[in-house]
Structures are given as structure tokens and as C-alpha cells.
């Protein structure tokens, strides 16, 4: 079942198994103290659900320190299963190792796709897709390689934008593109697009020279990317890259037997998910609608200002202003709306309305007022389509100002 015999027979898969364990250690290390998945976040209204599962808060059951320790208990249990999986690898008991890793797989998938919208980074999509392929699909070696290259290829669908064509993501930053002069930014950004879109496929090539040259490029690229994204993304991607395309590389012909149908279905699902944000009207970089359904890493440099004017039934009024100058904070109108919605629900008896504006600047461009509503409490949000209360670039949202260069943190 699940073609575990492939893992038993192929050292390349055994090494990827180890790299996947490392990825889960890194993910859980980042999550063990988060409040995002706790019942306390739900009680405070600070939790954040996916648009397709907006009632996720009712399913949260953990408590993190200082409120409780069930979350640390769960993660230390998973730590134990991962450590035990390493022991089972040493003993060559691949069925037991597989079973133990499946526990981490399901918890990780549940967190990033159902329990919270706040923790799913693009590197989690890598972990999920590679682990799914390794744990459950037949023809593991071929599909691991294809999924890996497809992730590079599909990531460029989010990069075909002024962000990377002109390089405004980086020139809008105070610190610019690390190590390189500002004038060279468009050269590097377009080179990365070409390498991910076209050259990445040569990772699957029989031509040894081309294959190795592209591998060296991507190793250098991931090491360089760490200057901004730090350890987790390179540590998630680099080991698997080197194992699949360096240490154990051999040309693997595509399988077309009946068993390969599951792998090809996964490939089709990846294509569909990446197409989703492009099928929703409006520039997804501005509206963020459908943005997280596909890969979105470094898709645009964001800054935003959200202002709310809260009017209570007794006549009291309050103003709140929330700003984000960090390029990587996505300024998703949905996130702000979800928070406001919690306040509306919690204080329904005493609230009259919440007036809300959201100004969004993309890649150092003007702040556009993409949301301006009289009462945010009356709004709803659709996850798989356009929401009329979010203005697209075609609605000519008013310009409210221009930003200065911002920061990456």
C-alpha cells in the first residue's frame, strides 16, 4: 500500500524521507508557540480562518503558553514521532517510519488548509506537496522531481507582473536588492523568471552539463534567497533539491501506466490552483482575492493603511488606524475584514456600525483606496470569486498618497 516498497528499495527516496522529517521539525519549531491555532485566539477574536472555512475557530482546541500547554504537548508528541521515525529509518523499518511521518503530514495539512489562514507560507505548500508525493503516490521518484520543477514553473505565474518584470518589489525597499546595485535589479529579476520558467525543466534533462549548470544556479539562488527569507525556506527546499537533482540524479522517464494516474491528477490540481487567482477579475496583487490558492512568494511589495470608525448604539465613537509597512505583509482585505467581523459578532448588541477604509500600495505605487464602506459588519466574503466591495484597478480607486521606501522584515 502507498508504494512503500519504492522507499525500501531506492536510497534517493530514503534521503528525501530524511529531508521531509527535517522540514516538519522546522515547521513545528515555528508553530509550537503560536497563538494562531489556539482556543484563546478564538475567544479573543484574533484567529484567522481560510475564506473557504470561515468557522474554523469553532474547531480550535489547543492552548499555548502562558494560557495552557496542550499545544506544546501535541508538538512534543509529534517531535517524538519524528525522532522515532528516524530510529525506524536506521532499523530499515520503512512501514513504521512511514506511519509515523503520516501523523505529522496530517497535522501539518490540517493546520495550513483548515485550522488557520495565518500560518500557511509558500514553503508549507512545498512541504505538503513533496510529502504527499513521497508518502502516498506510486512512481515517487519521478513525481517528486516533476512536482519540484513544477513548483518553480508555476511560481512564475505569480511573477509575471511589474513586480518582477521591472523589479519594483526590490527598488521600493529601503535596502534594495541585497548585494546588487539598484540599476541591476531588472536584470536579476528577469533572469530568475527565465530560470524558473524555462531552465528549471533542464533539471530533468539527460544532458549532464545543462542539468548540472541549472542545479548550481538554483543552489546559489536558494542560498542567496536566505538573505531575505532566512533559514526556513532554503532549509525546506535545498536538501530535497540536492538529493533529487544532485546526489542521486538519474534521468527518470515519465510513467504512463494506470498507477501513475494519481500523480498526474496531483499535477493537474497544481495547475488548476495556480490558475485560480488569474480567473478572478482584478489584479490579485491589489485585491489579494484567490492569492493564496496558488504560489505567491514575493509576488508584490505591499504597504497598507486600514482605518475604522466604530459607532456604538449609545453614541460613543472610536477611531482605529492600523498600518503595515513590511513588504511581505500581504495587506489582504480579507484579513482585515475577518478581524472586523469578529468585533461585529462579539459586540453586536452594543454596536451600530463600523465604517472602514483600506488603502493599499503595491510595489511603491500610490496608495489606492480599495475599500471604503459605510458599515463593514454587513459585508460577506467569497473565497472563490470577486467581492464587489473590493475595488479593482478597473474601478479607478482614488489615490490617497504616495509611500516612501519601505522595509522587509
Amino acid at each position, binding site marked *: 500500500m502507498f508504494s512503500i516498497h519504492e522507499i525500501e528499495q531506492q536510497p534517493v527516496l530514503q534521503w528525501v524521507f530524511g529531508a521531509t522529517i527535517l522540514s516538519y521539525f522546522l515547521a513545528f519549531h515555528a508553530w509550537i508557540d503560536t497563538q494562531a491555532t489556539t482556543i484563546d485566539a478564538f475567544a479573543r477574536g484574533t484567529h484567522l480562518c481560510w475564506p473557504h472555512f470561515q468557522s474554523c475557530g469553532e474547531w480550535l482546541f489547543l492552548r499555548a503558553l502562558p494560557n495552557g500547554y496542550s499545544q506544546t504537548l501535541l508538538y512534543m508528541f509529534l517531535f517524538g514521532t519524528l525522532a522515532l521515525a528516524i530510529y525506524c529509518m536506521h532499523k530499515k523499518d520503512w512501514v513504521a517510519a512511514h506511519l509515523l511521518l503520516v501523523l505529522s503530514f496530517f497535522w501539518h495539512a490540517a493546520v495550513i488548509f483548515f485550522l488557520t489562514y495565518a500560518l500557511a507560507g509558500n514553503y508549507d505548500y512545498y512541504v505538503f506537496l513533496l510529502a504527499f508525493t513521497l508518502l502516498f503516490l506510486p512512481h515517487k521518484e519521478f513525481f517528486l522531481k516533476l512536482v519540484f520543477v513544477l513548483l518553480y*514553473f508555476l511560481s*512564475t*505565474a505569480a511573477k*509575471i*507582473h*511589474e513586480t518582477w*518584470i*521591472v*523589479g*519594483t518589489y526590490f*527598488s*521600493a525597499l529601503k535596502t534594495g536588492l541585497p548585494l546588487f546595485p*539598484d*540599476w*541591476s*535589479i*531588472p536584470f536579476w529579476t528577469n533572469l530568475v*523568471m*527565465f530560470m524558473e*520558467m*524555462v531552465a528549471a*525543466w533542464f533539471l530533468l534533462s539527460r544532458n549532464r552539463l545543462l542539468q548540472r549548470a541549472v542545479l548550481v544556479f538554483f543552489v546559489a539562488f536558494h542560498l542567496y534567497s536566505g538573505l531575505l527569507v532566512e533559514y526556513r525556506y532554503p532549509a525546506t527546499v535545498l536538501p530535497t533539491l540536492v538529493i533529487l537533482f544532485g546526489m542521486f540524479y538519474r534521468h527518470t522517464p*515519465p510513467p*504512463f501506466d494506470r498507477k501513475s494516474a494519481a500523480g498526474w491528477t496531483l499535477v493537474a490540481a497544481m495547475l488548476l490552483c495556480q490558475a485560480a487567482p488569474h480567473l478572478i477579475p482584478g489584479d490579485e496583487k491589489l485585491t489579494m482575492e484567490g492569492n493564496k490558492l496558488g504560489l505567491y512568494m514575493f509576488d508584490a511589495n505591499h*504597504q497598507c*493603511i*486600514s482605518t*475604522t470608525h466604530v459607532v456604538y448604539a449609545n453614541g460613543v465613537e472610536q*477611531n*482605529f*488606524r*492600523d*498600518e503595515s*509597512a513590511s513588504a511581505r505583509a500581504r495587506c489582504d482585505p480579507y484579513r482585515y475584514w475577518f*478581524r*472586523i467581523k469578529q*468585533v461585529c459578532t462579539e459586540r453586536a448588541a452594543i454596536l451600530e456600525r463600523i465604517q472602514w477604509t483600506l488603502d493599499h500600495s503595491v510595489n*511603491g*505605487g*500610490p*496608495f489606492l483606496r480599495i475599500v471604503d464602506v459605510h458599515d463593514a459588519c454587513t459585508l460577506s466574503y467569497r473565497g472563490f470569486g470577486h467581492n464587489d466591495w473590493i475595488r479593482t484597478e478597473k474601478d479607478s480607486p482614488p*489615490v*490617497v*498618497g*504616495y*509611500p*516612501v*521606501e*519601505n522595509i522587509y522584515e
Partner: protein
Amino acid sequence: MNNEPAFIVLKGLEGNEPTHLVGLQPLLLSHADSLAIGWWLIFFTTFAYLLVGKFLWPIVRRYSRTTE
């Protein structure tokens, strides 16, 4: 929601086009839409070549062999 003091500095509206563009960027920005079309062409050409040449064609060839 919080009420922290503002740290985003907004420049006024008068004559404040983005000033962070350097080197070739103003030129590229004015042609960004055309360049995007070019990139999409490369994207779909690569995709079509791989889909047809590397995956669909081998399936057709294999099928035709088995029915000979």
C-alpha cells in the same frame, strides 16, 4: 486593531510620482504590459511544448504501438 502612532510617511499628492525607479526601470515600467504578454507567451509555449512533446506524444506513440 491597534491605535499605534503612524509610521508610514505619506508624501503629498502633488507631483509625487513614484521616485524609487532607477536605471532602466522607468522605461520597463512604461512597457510592462507588453513585456508581460511576452512572458506569458514564453510561459504557455514552454507549457505546450512539455505537455505535447514530452507527455502527450509519448502516450499516443505507446497507444499506437499497442494497437498495431
